[in-house]
């Protein structure tokens, strides 16, 4: 079987987008998350359930509570990915800040935010990343922090490079930072990716385009915030994260 071309993938992404637009026009709710079955992302084919999810509406469900983390689970340096080695990493130094909120707009305080990313050349410090771009001995690309009482997180890092992958011929991922976030309930758990504004690769990437709703896709893109740029040091990006979760986690009086 010959590998699909970008044109093949583009056609499939357009078909999925048109199908979504049709469902919206027929009155269905906006799609907040990617469909797990998204053929343009080839690896999803055998890795998505075919049966509908079983809905649980149990006020006693364990998933309405969740794990907690504390000061012992992070060190102060963890949030500065440029400070994990003796030398300075190569690349464009950036600061990424934002808030973690629940769907009622309340800050998620004291919870764990983890990030990982490629270096400025687009290479991960992972043995299975065989992209022949240079590794940077001064950059690993993993960090973590706890949100403060306002739900704020902040990382100092370098801007990751785009990188090729094998989904189809000439497949390139737009630059992104992987985020892993905990809420107060396990059911609010999310792992996602933050993108950078204006990346020309957005339209070609089936992982981003798997979010077929344009407004929802926009929520994965950080904004450049000049006020967050640090003079003579870094460019600033702002990205707020809103955790999904069961209706029980939206109400004001949930413990």
């Amino acid at each position, binding site marked *: 079987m010959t590998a699909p071309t970008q044109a093949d993938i583009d056609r499939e992404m357009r078909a999925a987008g048109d199908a979504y637009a049709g469902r919206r026009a027929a009155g269905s709710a906006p799609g907040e998350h*990617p469909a797990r079955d998204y053929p343009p992302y080839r690896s999803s084919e*055998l890795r998505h359930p075919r049966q509908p999810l079983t809905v649980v509406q149990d006020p006693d469900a364990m*998933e309405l509570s969740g794990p907690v983390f504390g000061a012992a689970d992070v060190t102060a340096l963890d949030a500065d990915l440029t400070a994990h080695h003796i030398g300075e990493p190569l690349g464009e130094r950036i600061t990424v800040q934002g808030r973690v909120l629940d769907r009622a707009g309340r800050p998620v305080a004291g919870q764990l935010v983890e990030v990982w990313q490629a270096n400025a050349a687009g290479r*991960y410090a992972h043995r299975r990343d065989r992209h022949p771009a240079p590794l940077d001995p001064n950059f690993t690309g993993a960090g973590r922090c706890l949100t403060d009482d306002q739900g704020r997180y902040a990382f100092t890092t370098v801007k990751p490079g785009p990188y090729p992958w094998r989904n189809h011929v000439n497949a390139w991922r737009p630059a992104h930072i992987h985020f892993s976030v905990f809420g107060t309930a396990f059911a609010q758990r*999310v792992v996602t990716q933050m993108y950078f504004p204006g990346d020309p690769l957005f339209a070609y990437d089936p992982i981003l385009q798997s*979010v077929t709703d344009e407004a929802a896709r926009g929520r*994965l893109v950080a904004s450049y915030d000049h006020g967050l740029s640090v003079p003579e040091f870094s460019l600033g990006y702002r990205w707020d994260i809103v955790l999904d979760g069961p*209706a029980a986690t939206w109400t004001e009086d949930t413990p």
Partner: protein
Amino acid sequence: MTDLTTAVDAVAADDAKAENAENAAKAATAVTAATPRLAPTPAQTVGPFFGYALPFPGGGDLVPPGHPGAVTLHGRVLDGAGTPIPDALLEFWQAGPDGSRLGAPGSMRRDETTGGFAGRDGVTFTGFARVATDADGRYALRTFAPAGVPYLSVCLFARGLLHHLFSRAYLTGEPGYAEDALLASLPPARRATLETVRERDGVHRFDIRLQGGEDADGGRYEETVFLDFA
């Protein structure tokens, strides 16, 4: 309590309808008079390269190996062709052996001197575990059986999985498990996918199958039940 949840859902559904009629384009930030409801950040796949960032030493050891009364939960994660998935990440959240649902910090204690991981303190039960599958798609977890609820909550991430999945591992033969409402609501073949196989005292097997299918010998296997917390 069930009525309360249902009522909240009904309100949410009405709000959603009104909003669609009002302005579909504003759906990105759904706001109602009572409670502002922000649109969530979409999930994205964990990808193939989380291995140096998310797993941590002892991530599957909620209790020290060999601890008296410990339960081992182990199994494999399999795709729709029955092939083991070597790049999946599993998280578990559970009540303590005393029934506590509060959890505790300290799952990924750090060493301030080296910047590495210090490991759990061997005393605190944090209720949270994280394990990546190995090259054979296997994982293992050592824990206490939870009290109060007869299951461990499971969250599955993997390359190729665009949006994580929740499931539950019900420890076969543990107290309370026979009268669980979710298990009771499922047909037997589906129900069986959530029940661990008790291999011997204190050792339970729990495989996760992302899709049902037929194995090499023509035997049918069932897709694991995955959950949506509405």
